[in-house]
């Protein structure tokens, strides 16, 4: 399966243009008819340090980076050692390097024979204002068999805001780079007819999903790697008649969106682990006061400040269990970049309908990666009517905001509506919203807030299930979040080797769809695969008695993303022990 893909890593010092080069190659690949995925890696520095763009593209949707790279293009060797673990190479990897940037670093000595030296700087200097990363783009494109026209068109599209001179110079550099490698006639001018696809990052996708779900107010405090959700949303919310408020801290942002949602406007915030910790008190307030809110948590390595620029799936425990008291809420996780659109859309609608808090887990790998995908369709959500279940004033009767109803969902109101006023309260309250410390009120309201979530039929969106089960002993790889991509590829290889394998990517983690999960895993040999040290999803599912006997965990800490081969190795090693 991996044979149909091209993969390429572009590395350099921060500011060398590695990420821009990667964006250009990705868009060129898309114009040549490919699907694609680009992840990026950076150190903690603001300027300088190290930077890398890693790409993979091919005729089918790209779910992960694969196991190794076929091309390594080094713009320079500054801090290359820091990338060593992130860019696995093989004997077939071609290294493109500039003699002007110095010798091969010791980590790459073994690949000397596969190194192709190209004078990137010297060639760029031939053109006034020429940049060597553009020469590298040309060389990479030739190496990856991309038509020159696709690369030139991509450069024109990406650089169009910088003026015609910049584009013209970039085109010159790209041509020079392209000429350094044999092209086998690929530089033809006509490009194949390809469907118009989207280029979007996970953070942009999360923002779009929220807008599709109806979010029109966002308050947030910047934090890596969630900030781009906010940067993308700010101008677009304004155009849609909404607003984004930059708060003084996460404590403010979570309370701001509770206020705006109380006002009747679907609201969201985005943060990362340390910010989520600060928001817990506010999320509990949303649960208790039954105010719908959505919190996107773009996970990074933790605990504490951890590794802000790199990925991990280690915030599941706090998302599930961080609230004090009995505080049922929604926890969802997006499975890939395009799925961020669907998951946020669905989460917003669920939160609005069920009048509670939804925590949606994304991660740095999803958030800061860019994908070429078919435009995500609008989901069919027949059981989720648009908007909230609104109260209507009944003359002569008192409105009870927290009325105990059959499905636990009470009709909600908003300031300005006559005859439907109430005080939202984080204190325990009775059906009218009046604070109450009576055991009966506490028990009734706690049960109502639980039951409205557990009794709701969420339909089939709780998980993505791929692969048929043929009989007892078939493999079932159960996973969540960005690990889904690597698991899908591992499963495809297992099937190709004759082993029936099902993949369950869990999108709704709480409330857990226990019965559906049991049905989907019945009789299978289950592995729970995730990117955190001790297997947080595995332990949660075990505590919920949702896994069949003998289920096993494959998990390891980040920040390096899971690769299909290591999942296969783990399964093979365990099978050998059996």
């Amino acid at each position: 399966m991996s044979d149909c893909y091209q993969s390429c890593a572009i590395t350099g010092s921060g500011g060398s243009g590695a990420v821009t080069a990667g964006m250009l190659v990705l868009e060129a690949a898309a114009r040549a008819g490919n699907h694609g995925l680009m992840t990026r890696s950076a150190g903690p520095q603001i300027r300088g340090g190290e930077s890398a763009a890693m790409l993979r593209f091919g005729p089918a949707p790209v779910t992960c980076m694969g196991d190794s790279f076929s091309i390594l293009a080094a713009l320079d060797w500054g801090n290359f050692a820091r990338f060593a673990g992130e860019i696995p190479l093989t004997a077939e990897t071609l290294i493109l390097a500039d003699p002007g940037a110095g010798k091969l670093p010791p980590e790459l000595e073994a690949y000397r024979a596969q190194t192709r030296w190209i004078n990137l700087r010297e060639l760029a200097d031939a053109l006034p204002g020429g940049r060597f990363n553009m020469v590298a783009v040309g060389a990479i494109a030739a190496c990856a068999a991309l038509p020159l026209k696709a690369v030139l068109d991509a450069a024109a599209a990406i650089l169009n805001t910088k003026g015609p001179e910049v584009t013209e110079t970039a085109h010159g550099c790209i041509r020079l780079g392209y000429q350094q490698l044999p092209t086998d006639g690929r530089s033809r001018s006509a490009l194949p007819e390809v469907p118009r696809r989207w280029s979007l990052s996970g953070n942009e996708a999360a923002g779009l999903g929220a807008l599709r779900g109806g979010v029109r107010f966002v308050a947030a405090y910047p934090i890596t790697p969630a900030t781009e959700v906010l940067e993308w949303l700010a101008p677009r919310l304004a155009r849609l008649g909404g607003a984004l408020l930059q708060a003084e801290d996460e404590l403010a942002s979570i309370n701001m969106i509770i206020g705006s949602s109380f006002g009747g406007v679907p609201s969201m915030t985005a943060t990362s682990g340390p910010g989520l910790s600060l928001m817990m008190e506010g999320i509990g307030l949303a649960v208790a006061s039954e105010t719908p809110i959505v919190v996107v948590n773009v996970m990074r390595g933790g605990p504490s400040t951890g590794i802000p620029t790199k990925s991990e799936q280690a915030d599941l425990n706090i998302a599930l269990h961080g609230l004090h008291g009995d505080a049922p809420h929604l926890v969802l996780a997006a499975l890939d970049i395009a799925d961020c659109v669907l998951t946020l859309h669905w989460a917003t609608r669920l939160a609005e309908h069920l009048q509670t808090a939804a925590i949606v887990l994304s991660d740095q790998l999803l958030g800061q990666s860019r994908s070429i995908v078919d435009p995500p369709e609008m989901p069919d959500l027949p059981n989720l009517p648009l908007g909230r279940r609104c109260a209507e004033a009944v003359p002569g009767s008192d409105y009870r905001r927290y009325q105990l109803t059959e499905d636990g969902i009470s009709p909600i109101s908003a300031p300005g509506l006559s005859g439907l006023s109430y005080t939202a309260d984080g204190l325990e309250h009775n059906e009218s919203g009046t604070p109450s410390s009576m055991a009966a009120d506490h028990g009734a309201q706690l049960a109502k807030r639980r039951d409205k979530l557990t009794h709701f039929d969420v339909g089939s969106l709780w998980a993505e299930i791929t692969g048929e089960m043929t009989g007892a002993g078939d493999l079932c790889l159960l996973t969540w979040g960005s690990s889904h991509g690597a698991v899908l590829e591992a499963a495809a290889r297992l099937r190709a080797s004759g082993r029936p394998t099902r993949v369950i990517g869990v999108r709704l983690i709480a409330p857990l769809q226990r019965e559906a999960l049991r049905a989907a895993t019945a009789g299978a040999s289950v592995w729970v695969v995730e990117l955190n040290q001790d297997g947080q999803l595995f332990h949660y599912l075990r505590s919920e008695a949702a896994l069949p006997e003998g289920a096993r965990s494959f998990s390891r800490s980040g920040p390096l993303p899971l690769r299909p081969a290591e999942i296969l190795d783990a399964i093979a090693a365990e099978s050998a022990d059996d």
Partner: protein
Amino acid sequence: MTNPRTNWARTNRASTERAGHPSTTLGAKDYKSEIKPVWCPGCGHFGVLAALTKAFAYLGLPKDEVVTVSGIGCSSRIPAYIDGYGFHGVHGRALALAAGLKAARPDLTLVVTGGDGDGFSIGGNHFLHACRRNMDMTYIVMDNEVYGMTKGQASPTTQPDWSHSKLTPRGTGVPRFHPAAIALAAGASFIARGFAGSPNELVRLLVQALEHPGFALVQVLSPCQTFRPEQKAWKQAVHTIAEPAPADPSEAARLIQGDDGLALGVLYAQRAPVYQPRNQVEAELADIEAEFLL
């Protein structure tokens, strides 16, 4: 409205029919809910609640368009005691919650109520940024220099040598937080001080605060009979400052720094840019989605 001799305590249905204000039949009592306050007998907060409802009645504010937001503490119970929309949130975060509400619903009249601990200790950072953000809301801080709800600990405005708390048996040893001075430095555009035991004066201040476009702080000295019985002496000690209120910050700074903390009236009032998102629809979602097309 600016006449200090108006008998605010007698505000009733008839008073709201004055020229320039919406015609309404609501009196102060109409703004009170049927819920009985949890406050101790003699608590100053009763006076603040009464003054607030009188101010609402005077201005003829539609009950469903006023929202009272609070955090935690004795005074933060006020939203439940007002017949209208309210939000009783968590400790210290009322101003943030109100900012989000105002940004989303600029049409509403917002009143934030709380105490000295809620506003100046746990909510201190939000207080600073609410002052500088200058969104249109009235912030009433009922200052009794003590944490009442947790039974008598020192607050940021407690005197450093007050040794009656088990937590600080030798006093806090820390200078007092000066709300007016800090509000001025942080950029508040309206700063006033009232006294729960001077109802007419307090209604007048609250009306001015409610009519001020922007963030209006009203620090209300509100005695705690239970833990600070010596505050009964405030009745004799408070005094009214001369009008008009300074509009120049340096003049206000001199007034605020020079007073004894018991001077009542508007300490500073100035027109300043009010923050409010535009909330105007200029595009459809399809226009946004088209940006992703290659």
